[in-house]
Protein backbone atom coordinates (compact mmCIF):
# COMPACT_ATOMS: atom_id res chain seq x y z
CA UNK A 1 0.00 0.00 0.00
CA UNK A 2 1.35 3.42 -0.96
CA UNK A 3 0.23 6.55 0.86
CA UNK A 4 0.65 9.87 -0.95
CA UNK A 5 0.51 13.27 0.67
CA UNK A 6 -0.74 15.73 -1.93
CA UNK A 7 -0.52 19.42 -1.03
CA UNK A 8 -2.93 21.49 -3.06
CA UNK A 9 -4.23 25.01 -3.42
CA UNK A 10 -7.24 23.93 -1.37
CA UNK A 11 -6.01 21.61 1.31
CA UNK A 12 -3.95 18.50 1.96
CA UNK A 13 -5.15 15.20 0.54
CA UNK A 14 -3.93 11.82 1.72
CA UNK A 15 -4.33 9.17 -0.97
CA UNK A 16 -3.84 5.42 -0.71
CA UNK A 17 -3.55 2.76 -3.37
CA UNK A 18 -1.81 -0.51 -4.09
CA UNK A 19 -2.61 -1.24 -7.70
CA UNK A 20 -2.23 0.41 -11.09
CA UNK A 21 -5.32 2.53 -10.76
CA UNK A 22 -7.05 5.30 -8.96
CA UNK A 23 -5.98 5.91 -5.39
CA UNK A 24 -8.56 6.42 -2.67
CA UNK A 25 -8.78 9.77 -0.90
CA UNK A 26 -8.46 8.76 2.75
CA UNK A 27 -8.42 12.21 4.32
CA UNK A 28 -8.46 15.93 3.61
CA UNK A 29 -7.02 18.51 5.99
CA UNK A 30 -6.75 22.30 5.94
CA UNK A 31 -9.82 22.63 3.73
CA UNK A 32 -9.66 25.77 1.65
CA UNK A 33 -6.08 26.60 2.62
CA UNK A 34 -3.04 26.43 0.33
CA UNK A 35 -0.80 23.57 1.41
CA UNK A 36 2.60 24.15 -0.11
CA UNK A 37 4.23 20.95 1.09
CA UNK A 38 3.62 17.94 3.30
CA UNK A 39 5.81 15.03 4.30
CA UNK A 40 6.07 12.11 6.71
CA UNK A 41 9.12 12.15 8.95
CA UNK A 42 10.12 8.51 9.47
CA UNK A 43 12.33 9.44 12.42
CA UNK A 44 9.59 10.89 14.60
CA UNK A 45 6.67 9.23 12.86
CA UNK A 46 5.02 12.62 12.47
CA UNK A 47 3.40 14.15 9.46
CA UNK A 48 4.27 17.80 8.77
CA UNK A 49 2.42 20.26 6.54
CA UNK A 50 3.41 23.74 5.38
CA UNK A 51 0.20 25.77 5.15
CA UNK A 52 0.00 29.36 3.91
CA UNK A 53 -3.28 30.87 4.95
CA UNK A 54 -4.16 33.92 2.91
CA UNK A 55 -5.58 35.32 6.11
CA UNK A 56 -3.27 34.10 8.84
CA UNK A 57 0.12 33.61 7.20
CA UNK A 58 2.50 30.65 6.89
CA UNK A 59 2.55 27.90 9.50
CA UNK A 60 3.82 24.34 9.91
CA UNK A 61 1.45 21.85 11.49
CA UNK A 62 2.22 18.34 12.78
CA UNK A 63 0.17 15.25 13.50
CA UNK A 64 0.60 11.54 14.06
CA UNK A 65 -2.42 10.83 11.87
CA UNK A 66 -3.22 12.94 8.78
CA UNK A 67 -6.92 12.20 9.29
CA UNK A 68 -6.76 13.42 12.89
CA UNK A 69 -6.02 16.68 14.64
CA UNK A 70 -3.11 18.83 13.51
CA UNK A 71 -1.06 20.89 15.95
CA UNK A 72 0.62 24.19 15.10
CA UNK A 73 4.37 24.25 15.64
CA UNK A 74 6.28 27.13 17.20
CA UNK A 75 9.22 29.38 16.43
CA UNK A 76 8.57 30.10 12.76
CA UNK A 77 9.05 33.84 12.74
CA UNK A 78 11.69 36.35 11.75
CA UNK A 79 13.39 38.85 14.08
CA UNK A 80 11.02 41.76 14.70
CA UNK A 81 13.81 44.31 14.47
CA UNK A 82 14.54 43.37 10.85
CA UNK A 83 11.04 44.35 9.70
CA UNK A 84 10.69 41.33 7.41
CA UNK A 85 7.83 38.89 7.47
CA UNK A 86 7.83 35.18 6.76
CA UNK A 87 5.85 34.78 3.54
CA UNK A 88 5.73 31.08 2.77
CA UNK A 89 7.26 27.74 3.77
CA UNK A 90 8.35 25.63 0.85
CA UNK A 91 9.87 22.45 2.19
CA UNK A 92 10.65 20.28 5.20
CA UNK A 93 13.61 17.92 4.99
CA UNK A 94 14.77 15.37 7.58
CA UNK A 95 18.25 15.94 8.95
CA UNK A 96 20.76 13.16 9.42
CA UNK A 97 20.28 12.86 13.17
CA UNK A 98 17.01 11.64 14.69
CA UNK A 99 14.34 14.29 15.23
CA UNK A 100 16.40 16.89 13.36
CA UNK A 101 14.52 18.67 10.58
CA UNK A 102 15.13 21.60 8.27
CA UNK A 103 12.49 23.90 6.81
CA UNK A 104 13.05 26.36 3.97
CA UNK A 105 10.95 29.34 3.11
CA UNK A 106 10.47 32.79 1.68
CA UNK A 107 12.26 35.24 2.02
CA UNK A 108 15.22 32.86 1.61
CA UNK A 109 15.16 31.55 5.17
CA UNK A 110 16.25 28.33 6.86
CA UNK A 111 14.72 27.01 10.07
CA UNK A 112 15.90 24.01 12.12
CA UNK A 113 14.13 21.75 14.57
CA UNK A 114 15.72 19.29 16.97
CA UNK A 115 12.47 17.91 18.39
CA UNK A 116 10.86 16.38 15.34
CA UNK A 117 9.31 19.61 14.12
CA UNK A 118 7.43 20.73 17.24
CA UNK A 119 9.57 23.84 17.61
CA UNK A 120 11.78 25.68 15.14
CA UNK A 121 14.68 28.10 15.27
CA UNK A 122 15.90 30.45 12.57
CA UNK A 123 19.39 29.75 11.21
CA UNK A 124 20.89 33.11 12.10
CA UNK A 125 24.14 32.91 10.10
CA UNK A 126 22.15 32.49 6.91
CA UNK A 127 19.64 35.15 7.89
CA UNK A 128 22.54 37.54 8.47
CA UNK A 129 24.27 37.01 5.12
CA UNK A 130 25.72 40.42 4.23
CA UNK A 131 24.52 40.28 0.62
CA UNK A 132 20.90 39.61 1.63
CA UNK A 133 19.71 43.17 0.85
CA UNK A 134 20.70 42.57 -2.77
CA UNK A 135 18.82 39.28 -3.14
CA UNK A 136 15.87 39.09 -5.53
CA UNK A 137 12.94 36.69 -5.89
CA UNK A 138 11.87 34.31 -8.63
CA UNK A 139 8.28 33.93 -9.76
CA UNK A 140 7.37 31.98 -6.65
CA UNK A 141 9.01 34.48 -4.36
CA UNK A 142 12.43 34.24 -2.77
CA UNK A 143 11.99 30.62 -1.88
CA UNK A 144 14.46 28.33 -0.21
CA UNK A 145 13.03 25.15 -1.68
CA UNK A 146 15.89 22.65 -1.81
CA UNK A 147 17.86 21.39 1.19
CA UNK A 148 20.25 18.52 0.53
CA UNK A 149 21.74 16.72 3.49
CA UNK A 150 24.74 14.36 3.31
CA UNK A 151 24.26 10.79 4.59
CA UNK A 152 26.51 10.23 7.59
CA UNK A 153 27.77 13.82 7.62
CA UNK A 154 25.28 15.98 9.50
CA UNK A 155 27.41 19.11 9.10
CA UNK A 156 27.36 19.11 5.31
CA UNK A 157 24.48 20.91 3.66
CA UNK A 158 23.60 22.28 0.25
CA UNK A 159 20.66 24.58 -0.37
CA UNK A 160 19.03 25.94 -3.50
CA UNK A 161 17.16 29.24 -3.60
CA UNK A 162 15.16 30.97 -6.28
CA UNK A 163 16.79 33.25 -7.13
CA UNK A 164 19.93 33.34 -5.01
CA UNK A 165 21.72 30.24 -6.28
CA UNK A 166 23.38 27.43 -4.36
CA UNK A 167 24.67 27.73 -0.81
CA UNK A 168 26.99 25.26 0.91
CA UNK A 169 27.96 24.62 4.51
CA UNK A 170 30.44 22.19 6.05
CA UNK A 171 29.73 22.99 9.68
CA UNK A 172 26.03 22.44 10.12
CA UNK A 173 25.00 25.87 8.91
CA UNK A 174 27.25 28.16 10.93
CA UNK A 175 29.18 29.33 7.85
CA UNK A 176 27.85 29.51 4.30
CA UNK A 177 29.42 30.00 0.90
CA UNK A 178 28.23 30.07 -2.71
CA UNK A 179 28.39 27.02 -4.99
CA UNK A 180 27.53 28.55 -8.33
CA UNK A 181 30.47 27.88 -10.65
CA UNK A 182 29.30 26.77 -14.09
CA UNK A 183 25.69 27.94 -13.82
CA UNK A 184 24.68 30.08 -16.80
CA UNK A 185 21.75 32.47 -16.24
CA UNK A 186 20.59 32.91 -19.83
CA UNK A 187 17.92 35.30 -18.58
CA UNK A 188 20.64 37.91 -17.93
CA UNK A 189 22.65 39.76 -20.57
CA UNK A 190 26.07 38.21 -21.05
CA UNK A 191 27.82 41.19 -19.49
CA UNK A 192 25.73 40.82 -16.31
CA UNK A 193 26.39 37.12 -15.71
CA UNK A 194 29.84 37.15 -14.17
CA UNK A 195 29.84 36.91 -10.37
CA UNK A 196 26.06 37.36 -10.20
CA UNK A 197 24.13 35.53 -7.53
CA UNK A 198 20.86 36.27 -9.32
CA UNK A 199 20.64 32.55 -10.03
CA UNK A 200 17.25 30.89 -10.26
CA UNK A 201 17.63 27.34 -9.00
CA UNK A 202 14.36 25.49 -9.52
CA UNK A 203 15.23 22.23 -7.80
CA UNK A 204 18.28 20.43 -6.46
CA UNK A 205 18.81 16.98 -4.98
CA UNK A 206 21.82 15.02 -3.76
CA UNK A 207 22.43 11.42 -4.82
CA UNK A 208 22.46 9.56 -1.48
CA UNK A 209 24.59 6.71 -2.82
CA UNK A 210 27.28 9.14 -4.02
CA UNK A 211 26.82 12.26 -1.92
CA UNK A 212 29.32 14.44 -3.76
CA UNK A 213 26.94 14.25 -6.75
CA UNK A 214 23.94 16.56 -7.06
CA UNK A 215 21.48 17.18 -9.87
CA UNK A 216 19.82 20.51 -10.51
CA UNK A 217 16.92 21.81 -12.57
CA UNK A 218 17.69 25.47 -13.25
CA UNK A 219 15.63 28.28 -14.77
CA UNK A 220 16.76 27.19 -18.21
CA UNK A 221 19.34 24.45 -17.76
CA UNK A 222 19.81 21.02 -16.22
CA UNK A 223 23.07 20.53 -14.34
CA UNK A 224 25.10 17.94 -12.44
CA UNK A 225 27.76 18.54 -9.83
CA UNK A 226 30.35 15.92 -8.93
CA UNK A 227 32.13 18.03 -6.35
CA UNK A 228 29.41 18.48 -3.73
CA UNK A 229 27.90 21.54 -5.38
CA UNK A 230 31.04 23.63 -5.79
CA UNK A 231 30.73 23.57 -9.60
CA UNK A 232 28.14 22.49 -12.15
CA UNK A 233 28.17 20.84 -15.57
CA UNK A 234 25.50 21.31 -18.23
CA UNK A 235 23.61 18.06 -18.85
CA UNK A 236 20.61 19.64 -20.54
CA UNK A 237 22.00 20.71 -23.90
CA UNK A 238 21.91 18.27 -26.81
CA UNK A 239 21.28 15.36 -24.48
CA UNK A 240 17.80 14.39 -25.63
CA UNK A 241 15.58 16.71 -23.59
CA UNK A 242 12.85 18.60 -25.49
CA UNK A 243 13.54 21.59 -23.22
CA UNK A 244 15.88 22.34 -20.35
CA UNK A 245 13.22 24.36 -18.51
CA UNK A 246 11.17 22.76 -15.76
CA UNK A 247 10.78 22.42 -12.03
CA UNK A 248 10.70 18.92 -10.50
CA UNK A 249 13.56 16.49 -10.15
CA UNK A 250 13.92 13.01 -8.67
CA UNK A 251 17.04 10.87 -8.18
CA UNK A 252 17.15 7.10 -7.74
CA UNK A 253 18.53 6.87 -4.19
CA UNK A 254 20.54 3.73 -4.97
CA UNK A 255 21.86 4.74 -8.40
CA UNK A 256 23.68 8.05 -8.64
CA UNK A 257 23.56 7.90 -12.44
CA UNK A 258 19.76 7.81 -12.58
CA UNK A 259 17.57 10.89 -12.41
CA UNK A 260 14.22 12.09 -13.71
CA UNK A 261 12.93 15.50 -14.85
CA UNK A 262 9.65 16.73 -16.31
CA UNK A 263 10.43 19.41 -18.94
CA UNK A 264 8.12 22.31 -19.68
CA UNK A 265 8.32 24.37 -22.88
CA UNK A 266 10.11 27.46 -21.53
CA UNK A 267 9.92 30.22 -18.96
CA UNK A 268 7.39 32.07 -21.12
CA UNK A 269 5.27 28.94 -21.67
CA UNK A 270 5.28 26.72 -18.61
CA UNK A 271 3.37 23.71 -19.94
CA UNK A 272 4.29 20.24 -21.14
CA UNK A 273 5.75 20.46 -24.68
CA UNK A 274 3.48 19.67 -27.58
CA UNK A 275 0.57 18.82 -25.31
CA UNK A 276 2.34 15.59 -24.32
CA UNK A 277 3.06 14.73 -20.71
CA UNK A 278 6.44 13.03 -20.52
CA UNK A 279 8.96 12.25 -17.82
CA UNK A 280 12.58 12.10 -18.97
CA UNK A 281 15.02 9.64 -17.48
CA UNK A 282 18.78 9.46 -17.52
CA UNK A 283 20.67 6.30 -16.60
CA UNK A 284 24.09 7.74 -17.42
CA UNK A 285 24.29 10.78 -15.15
CA UNK A 286 22.83 13.12 -17.75
CA UNK A 287 24.85 12.17 -20.81
CA UNK A 288 21.53 11.21 -22.41
CA UNK A 289 17.84 11.39 -21.55
CA UNK A 290 14.98 9.23 -22.82
CA UNK A 291 11.27 9.90 -22.54
CA UNK A 292 9.12 7.79 -20.26
CA UNK A 293 5.46 8.27 -20.95
CA UNK A 294 3.64 5.00 -21.57
CA UNK A 295 0.27 5.62 -19.96
CA UNK A 296 0.62 9.39 -19.59
CA UNK A 297 -1.52 11.83 -21.63
CA UNK A 298 -0.08 11.90 -25.14
CA UNK A 299 -2.08 14.70 -26.73
CA UNK A 300 -3.97 17.87 -25.86
CA UNK A 301 -2.48 17.89 -22.35
CA UNK A 302 -0.86 21.20 -21.45
CA UNK A 303 0.03 20.58 -17.84
CA UNK A 304 2.21 22.45 -15.36
CA UNK A 305 4.08 20.40 -12.77
CA UNK A 306 5.47 22.45 -9.90
CA UNK A 307 8.80 22.01 -8.17
CA UNK A 308 7.67 19.96 -5.15
CA UNK A 309 5.11 17.88 -7.04
CA UNK A 310 7.31 14.89 -7.97
CA UNK A 311 8.13 12.11 -5.53
CA UNK A 312 9.67 8.67 -5.44
CA UNK A 313 9.35 5.49 -3.38
CA UNK A 314 12.02 2.82 -3.21
CA UNK A 315 14.72 2.49 -5.84
CA UNK A 316 15.86 0.62 -8.93
CA UNK A 317 13.64 -0.95 -11.57
CA UNK A 318 10.73 -1.15 -9.14
CA UNK A 319 10.96 2.43 -7.97
CA UNK A 320 7.65 4.22 -7.55
CA UNK A 321 7.33 7.65 -9.16
CA UNK A 322 4.42 9.99 -8.51
CA UNK A 323 3.71 13.51 -9.76
CA UNK A 324 0.84 15.94 -9.70
CA UNK A 325 -0.09 18.85 -11.95
CA UNK A 326 -1.87 22.13 -11.46
CA UNK A 327 -4.69 20.52 -13.47
CA UNK A 328 -5.43 18.43 -10.36
CA UNK A 329 -4.25 15.19 -11.91
CA UNK A 330 -1.84 12.82 -10.14
CA UNK A 331 0.06 10.15 -12.03
CA UNK A 332 2.02 7.18 -10.79
CA UNK A 333 4.50 4.56 -11.94
CA UNK A 334 5.57 1.40 -10.13
CA UNK A 335 8.34 0.47 -12.54
CA UNK A 336 10.65 3.50 -12.49
CA UNK A 337 8.72 5.34 -15.17
CA UNK A 338 8.43 2.55 -17.75
CA UNK A 339 4.62 2.59 -17.47
CA UNK A 340 2.22 5.02 -15.83
CA UNK A 341 -1.29 5.11 -14.44
CA UNK A 342 -3.61 7.87 -13.28
CA UNK A 343 -3.81 7.90 -9.49
CA UNK A 344 -6.20 10.83 -9.08
CA UNK A 345 -8.04 13.47 -11.09
CA UNK A 346 -9.99 16.60 -10.32
CA UNK A 347 -8.07 17.56 -7.23
CA UNK A 348 -7.35 21.25 -6.70
CA UNK A 349 -4.11 22.50 -8.32
CA UNK A 350 -1.32 20.31 -6.97
CA UNK A 351 1.55 22.04 -5.17
CA UNK A 352 3.41 19.03 -3.80
CA UNK A 353 3.49 15.25 -3.78
CA UNK A 354 5.38 13.08 -1.31
CA UNK A 355 5.20 9.40 -0.42
CA UNK A 356 4.39 9.00 3.28
Amino acid sequence: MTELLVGTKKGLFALQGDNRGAFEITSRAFAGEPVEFAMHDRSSGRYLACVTSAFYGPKIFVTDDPAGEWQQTGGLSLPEEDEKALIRLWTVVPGIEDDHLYAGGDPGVLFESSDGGLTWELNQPFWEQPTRPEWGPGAGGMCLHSIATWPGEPGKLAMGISAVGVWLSDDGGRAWRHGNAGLVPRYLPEDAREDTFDLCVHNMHRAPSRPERLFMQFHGGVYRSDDAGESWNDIGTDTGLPSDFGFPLVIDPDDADSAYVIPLVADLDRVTPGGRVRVYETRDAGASWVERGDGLPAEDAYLTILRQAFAHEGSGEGMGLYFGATSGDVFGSRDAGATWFTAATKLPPVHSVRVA
Partner: protein
Amino acid sequence: MAVVRLRAPLTELTGGKRELQLEGATVRDVLRALEHEHPAISGWILDERTTIREHINVFVNGERGREDTALAPDDRIHVLPSISGG
Protein backbone atom coordinates in the same frame (compact mmCIF):
# COMPACT_ATOMS: atom_id res chain seq x y z
CA MET B 1 22.73 56.77 -29.76
CA ALA B 2 21.98 53.93 -27.39
CA VAL B 3 21.78 50.37 -28.64
CA VAL B 4 18.64 48.48 -27.56
CA ARG B 5 18.70 44.69 -27.67
CA LEU B 6 15.47 42.70 -27.63
CA ARG B 7 14.51 39.03 -27.51
CA ALA B 8 11.46 37.16 -28.69
CA PRO B 9 8.56 37.76 -28.47
CA LEU B 10 9.38 41.49 -28.55
CA THR B 11 11.33 41.07 -31.78
CA GLU B 12 8.08 40.03 -33.46
CA LEU B 13 6.90 43.60 -32.82
CA THR B 14 9.96 45.21 -34.39
CA GLY B 15 9.86 43.40 -37.69
CA GLY B 16 12.39 40.89 -36.46
CA LYS B 17 14.97 43.47 -35.42
CA ARG B 18 16.93 42.30 -32.38
CA GLU B 19 19.12 45.39 -32.13
CA LEU B 20 18.08 49.01 -32.65
CA GLN B 21 19.92 52.32 -32.33
CA LEU B 22 17.77 54.97 -30.66
CA GLU B 23 18.16 58.48 -29.26
CA GLY B 24 17.35 59.40 -25.67
CA ALA B 25 18.78 60.86 -22.48
CA THR B 26 17.17 58.24 -20.22
CA VAL B 27 15.92 54.68 -20.47
CA ARG B 28 12.36 56.03 -20.60
CA ASP B 29 13.26 58.34 -23.50
CA VAL B 30 14.83 55.51 -25.45
CA LEU B 31 11.91 53.16 -24.85
CA ARG B 32 9.48 55.90 -25.92
CA ALA B 33 11.60 56.34 -29.07
CA LEU B 34 11.33 52.60 -29.61
CA GLU B 35 7.54 52.84 -29.36
CA HIS B 36 7.54 55.75 -31.81
CA GLU B 37 9.58 53.80 -34.33
CA HIS B 38 7.70 50.55 -33.78
CA PRO B 39 4.19 51.41 -32.51
CA ALA B 40 3.29 47.75 -32.17
CA ILE B 41 5.56 47.48 -29.13
CA SER B 42 3.68 50.21 -27.26
CA GLY B 43 2.41 48.87 -23.95
CA TRP B 44 4.69 45.84 -23.95
CA ILE B 45 7.65 47.27 -22.01
CA LEU B 46 6.32 50.54 -20.58
CA ASP B 47 2.84 50.70 -19.11
CA GLU B 48 0.40 53.61 -19.32
CA ARG B 49 2.44 55.51 -16.71
CA THR B 50 5.62 55.02 -18.78
CA THR B 51 6.81 52.73 -16.00
CA ILE B 52 8.73 49.56 -16.86
CA ARG B 53 6.37 46.64 -16.36
CA GLU B 54 6.82 44.65 -13.16
CA HIS B 55 8.16 41.52 -14.76
CA ILE B 56 10.44 43.17 -17.31
CA ASN B 57 14.13 43.72 -16.55
CA VAL B 58 16.11 46.45 -18.26
CA PHE B 59 19.90 46.32 -18.06
CA VAL B 60 22.17 49.22 -19.01
CA ASN B 61 25.69 48.02 -19.79
CA GLY B 62 25.04 44.90 -17.70
CA GLU B 63 23.67 46.76 -14.67
CA ARG B 64 20.01 46.87 -13.73
CA GLY B 65 18.41 50.06 -14.97
CA ARG B 66 15.23 52.00 -14.28
CA GLU B 67 13.08 54.37 -16.29
CA ASP B 68 15.10 57.38 -15.16
CA THR B 69 18.56 55.85 -15.61
CA ALA B 70 20.64 58.40 -17.51
CA LEU B 71 22.26 57.23 -20.73
CA ALA B 72 25.51 58.05 -22.47
CA PRO B 73 26.15 57.61 -26.17
CA ASP B 74 26.75 53.96 -27.13
CA ASP B 75 25.21 52.61 -23.93
CA ARG B 76 23.82 49.09 -24.35
CA ILE B 77 20.27 48.44 -23.17
CA HIS B 78 18.97 44.87 -22.79
CA VAL B 79 15.25 44.28 -22.35
CA LEU B 80 14.52 40.85 -20.89
CA PRO B 81 11.63 39.05 -19.22
CA SER B 82 12.21 38.75 -15.50
CA ILE B 83 12.49 35.38 -13.78
CA SER B 84 9.80 36.67 -11.45
CA GLY B 85 7.25 36.48 -14.27
CA GLY B 86 5.70 33.52 -16.00
